């Protein structure tokens, strides 16, 4: 039955170990819950390291593959594996969960046990999404992830949590249903298999591709979130507890962009080529719109939430630039956004624990009252601005370079986002870090203690590491991205003749119709 590639099942361990922690929490006393959760998540982090150490950078193939038949008919497998696209995201997840546990240490006072369980279930589900190689398995993880996220917002959230949770659900519901339909259609047209790799090899008629493209788009664009499907995000962030915001921003949003990379690009190359201008347009709108929205916010979490919309616009921009720089930049930017925005949400959580306000006007003059906090806040804010030497710059630069090769005007408009990021972030810093602390808050402001330092130092370390020496992270993805792009080219050019005039003419006419948006070719 088993057709595993042999070796120790590291991936399965990483995916399901958190559930062992859940069992332990259920059995243990409530006071131990957070310790167990911390221990479990740290062990999971350790167990995820062999995936990186043992990863063959030169190979584009799936690695650490485990494959067992689950249901004979229809053929559903438990199949997992990683490549250069999923590995960084898996590591990002396992790295962030312990930090989420730490930041909730005192912030969560009620139902600690259930909270920790939700976090760990979340870990299983998100890692599962990134490693699944079977569509049904993927979908199960995809949907499972919603439950703990929903609970995190709905139970431990702020005063308006029900509204936020409903919104979150409505959006994702719409996407998920269409995703399911798309999966089933792929099953029937792609050779009666749920194997993601096999489905990626199959060729689908362009008209069908167009339908599938928008079905996928509905699911993934909501998650990213792309304009105009973004309005759930600020509400969800504002209501969610800090750990929820961190997971939401750092991991959950990446599932959308991961979906584009794993499914849309390889399976639907003709539709991708045809609709790229629309996606690029939406990305640019997201970058600028998100930045302006961030500019208008008075609530720190909302500001950072809208900055997420802007930053994730860069990721989709890079993916649909359909070249090596763009996609590698996008993957790196997914990681960077996880680190930087996650850290900013942590920072907001830390200050919220003290002042019980997220309003910018209540949290001022922090450099004077909390110098260490101000230092970290500054580091992550500047990382968000995309300062060279820090992580986001490398990703944004590659994305913009890739986007520039796709269309000069597009990249130029996106580069405006770089200016706007400086505006809204530094304006926030100016009001929060500089000046005098407000009168009624100043007695509540005490500087970071060891646990908080412990959550921020590793993140700051990554900010500089990726900024100064991103090669280890980039090297992981080269082969996989090259493979992805070859696939793209193969389907678009080499295999076009046998697919008759009709398919070629359709996609080319669509291209022509949309080419008005594309401005200028490269020499």
């Amino acid at each position, binding site marked *: 039955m088993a057709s595993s590639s042999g070796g120790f099942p590291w991936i399965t361990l990483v995916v399901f170990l958190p559930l062992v922690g859940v069992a332990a929490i259920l059995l243990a006393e409530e006071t131990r819950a957070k310790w167990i959760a911390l221990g479990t998540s740290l062990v999971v982090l350790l167990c995820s390291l062999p995936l990186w150490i043992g990863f063959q950078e030169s190979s584009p193939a799936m690695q650490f593959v485990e494959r067992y038949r689950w249901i004979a008919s*229809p053929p*559903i497998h438990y199949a997992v594996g990683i490549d250069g696209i999923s590995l960084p995201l898996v590591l990002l997840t396992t790295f962030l969960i312990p930090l989420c546990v730490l930041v909730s240490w005192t912030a969560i006072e009620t139902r600690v046990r*259930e909270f920790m369980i939700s976090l760990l279930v979340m870990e299983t589900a998100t890692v599962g999404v990134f490693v699944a190689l079977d569509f*049904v398995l993927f*979908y199960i993880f995809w*949907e499972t992830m*919603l*439950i703990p996220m*929903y*609970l995190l917002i709905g*139970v431990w959230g702020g005063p308006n949590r029900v509204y936020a*949770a*409903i919104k979150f*659900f*409505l959006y994702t519901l*719409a996407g*998920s*249903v269409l995703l*399911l339909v798309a999966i089933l259609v792929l*099953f029937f047209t792609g050779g*009666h298999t749920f194997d993601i790799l096999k489905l990626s090899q199959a060729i689908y008629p362009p008209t069908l591709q167009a339908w599938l493209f928008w079905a996928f788009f509905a699911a993934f664009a909501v998650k990213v979130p792309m304009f105009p499907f973004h*309005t*759930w995000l600020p509400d969800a962030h504002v209501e969610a507890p800090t750990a929820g915001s961190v997971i939401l921003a750092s991991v959950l949003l990446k599932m959308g962009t991961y979906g584009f990379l794993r499914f849309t690009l390889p399976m639907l190359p003709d539709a991708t080529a045809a609709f790229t201008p629309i996606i690029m347009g939406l990305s640019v709108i997201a970058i600028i*719109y998100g930045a*302006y*929205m961030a*500019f*208008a916010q008075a609530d720190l979490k909302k500001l950072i939430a809208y900055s997420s919309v802007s930053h994730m616009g860069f990721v989709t921009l890079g993916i649909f630039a359909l*070249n*090596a*720089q763009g996609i590698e930049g996008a993957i790196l930017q997914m990681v960077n956004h996880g680190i930087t925005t996650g850290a900013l949400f942590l920072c907001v959580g830390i200050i919220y624990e003290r002042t019980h306000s997220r309003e910018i006007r209540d949290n001022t*003059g922090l450099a*004077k009252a909390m110098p260490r906090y101000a230092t970290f806040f500054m580091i992550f804010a*500047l990382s968000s601005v995309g*300062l*060279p030497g820090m992580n986001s710059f490398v990703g944004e*630069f*590659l994305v*913009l*370079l890739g986007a*520039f090769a796709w269309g000069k005007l597009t*990249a130029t408009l996106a*580069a*405006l986002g*770089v*200016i706007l990021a*400086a*505006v809204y972030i*530094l*304006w926030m*810093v100016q009001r929060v*870090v*500089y*000046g005098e602390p407000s009168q009624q808050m100043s007695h509540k402001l005490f500087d970071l203690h060891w646990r908080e330092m412990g959550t921020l130092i590793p993140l700051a370390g990554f900010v500089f590491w990726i900024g100064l*020496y991103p*090669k280890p992270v*980039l*090297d992981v993805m*080269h082969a996989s991205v090259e493979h992805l792009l070859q696939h793209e080219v193969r389907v678009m050019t080499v295999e076009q003749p046998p697919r008759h005039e009709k398919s070629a003419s359709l996609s080319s006419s669509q291209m022509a119709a949309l080419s008005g948006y594309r401005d200028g070719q*490269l020499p």
Partner: protein
Amino acid sequence: MFDLLVLLIPGFPLVAVVINGLLGHRYSRELAGWLACGAVGLSFLCALAVFGDILGSKIAREVVAYTWIVGGALTVNLGFLIDSLTGVMLLVVTGVGLLIHVYSLGYMHGEEGFTRFFVYMNLFMVSMLLLVMGNNYLVLFIGWEGVGLCSYLLIGYYFDRISAAKAATKAFVVNRIGDAGFLLAIFLIFANFQSLDYTQVLPQVHRLSTEMATAIALCLFIGAVGKSAQIPLYTWLPDAMEGPTPVSALIHAATMVTAGVYMVVRNHALYDMAPAAMTLVGVIGGVTALFAATIGLVQYDIKRVLAYSTVSQLGYMFLACGVGAYIAAIFHLVTHAFFKALLFLSAGSVIHALGGEQDIRKMGGLASKIPLTHKTFLVGTLAIAGIPPLAGFWSKDEIMAHAFVHGHYGLYALAAIGALLTAFYMFRLTYLTFYGTSRIDPHVAHHVHESPPVMTRPLVALAALSIVGGFLGVPPEHGWMHGFLGSVVTPAETSSHTVSAGVMVGLMAFAVIVALSGWGIAHYLYAVKPQAADDWAARAPRVYTTLLNKYYVDELYDAIVVEPCKRLGRSWDWFDFHVIDRVVRGVGRFADVGSATSTWIEKHVIYGVLNLIAYANHLASWSWRKLQSGLVNHYAAVIVAGAFLLVHFLLVWLVGGTRV
């Protein structure tokens, strides 16, 4: 050995940043200060050694530290290019930087964030060195943004002052506008050359079409305009004076703001390909030179006068670039670094003596009280005003002569009027500060004291450099500087104009007359007839207030850029809530109606089953019940259960029938 020396130049300050930044609170601030200065000193020694090497070998060499970014066809190294242009910049940056660091030990003594100050200063040195040493556009860009960051941090050094915070933000944001242009230039360069290394790009620029060369040159120039505070992006520099005075000297006068000039000269091959871009560079430079000088005429803050003077002098450097006098641009960059650093540090010494006073209306008669500072300031004034044989005369004269000889009479006129105004406002500043009757607050007056040696010695050194620095470029067009830089900076048209010595001497004489006239007017207004200045101002009140308010450019930018941006943000916020969310809520209501029909199933079947499972697993206390009030958990249950049911149904009945 050479490679190691090169790496150590930015390496020493970097190590100091890390040590002082992480451990600075563990030991005394004096130690932190000396560590910072020592690092810059060692860096200076390494720079000297490297410079000696260039002097001997005269060949450009590349040193690669490591591979930084790889993506597709792009490979970017953290690498350095060491040639004569870099050599000159290295000496200026580390040399002047060292003097200012030492000066800061005294000036910043007693400030709260002493260690923090030196961490930022050292970080600035690292960034500036990367900027001038990089062997590709991206390393240049790291340095470029890095110096901008340090400028931001140091302008906002007094972080409890909200005006400082605003000035810092303004500086960064305005610079960012320029940086976006720079980024676009990098993308264009990569698109055309598939590389970002100078050695791959610059020898190949002749392959570009004129249009493409112009596009790249203009994008680069947008970056230069931001960093070097030229029209229309100059407004941040005067505000940047919120930072401590040594910062103004190092960053906002001697080094960082000249980065744009360095970049244009480094890319001169590109500009030679793009005459239209050259013209624009020259015109922007010339107009800025005059425009900033006019504002400087009436300002009362000693540092702001110097700031406008810096904007003006940078204008001269761009004017030089625009007329193809690249070596003269670098020459003026070097002499300006000497005398402007001197002026700022002397001004700092004045401010130090007066306990923080910066308003020249509350100064006067300081010459006898702080004689050494007076002398050094006077040297700086004579140098910048263009009185021979001090440094500023030679470099400014060379720029103006080049413009004249190559037929750019309009630019020459701008520069000449600017020179007159420069001499005037600098002597006005000197007279109001050091001569005449004292207008100093009596409480302050008896505390006035000369600065300690740690501050005055750097002043003396810079004064000496301001006196003799000009001889690096004497005789004009054929000095040592020209020979040294000639290998790197060879203008396209190699002196096709042979100019008679008579013309050159005539131009020099005219320049001297202009400078002396400016001095004369200032002498008349502020020494001979002190009340005349007010009379002149009263006679043209509109001109005077316009100048005093800096042509209302800040207000204009506020009205046409800043406020509309804020309004746009707010209106989009409205759009999000009232349009997009209304659609979502509509869908929500629709879903409510739809779900009403299935509520019965939900309540009696699915929810029951779920509850059963929950009870069975000792999970009854879970949040399912907590949320029973809302519809929300119904959605959750329905979606998950429904999805599973649907999948199951489809799989078992639909798919199960077909052969797999």
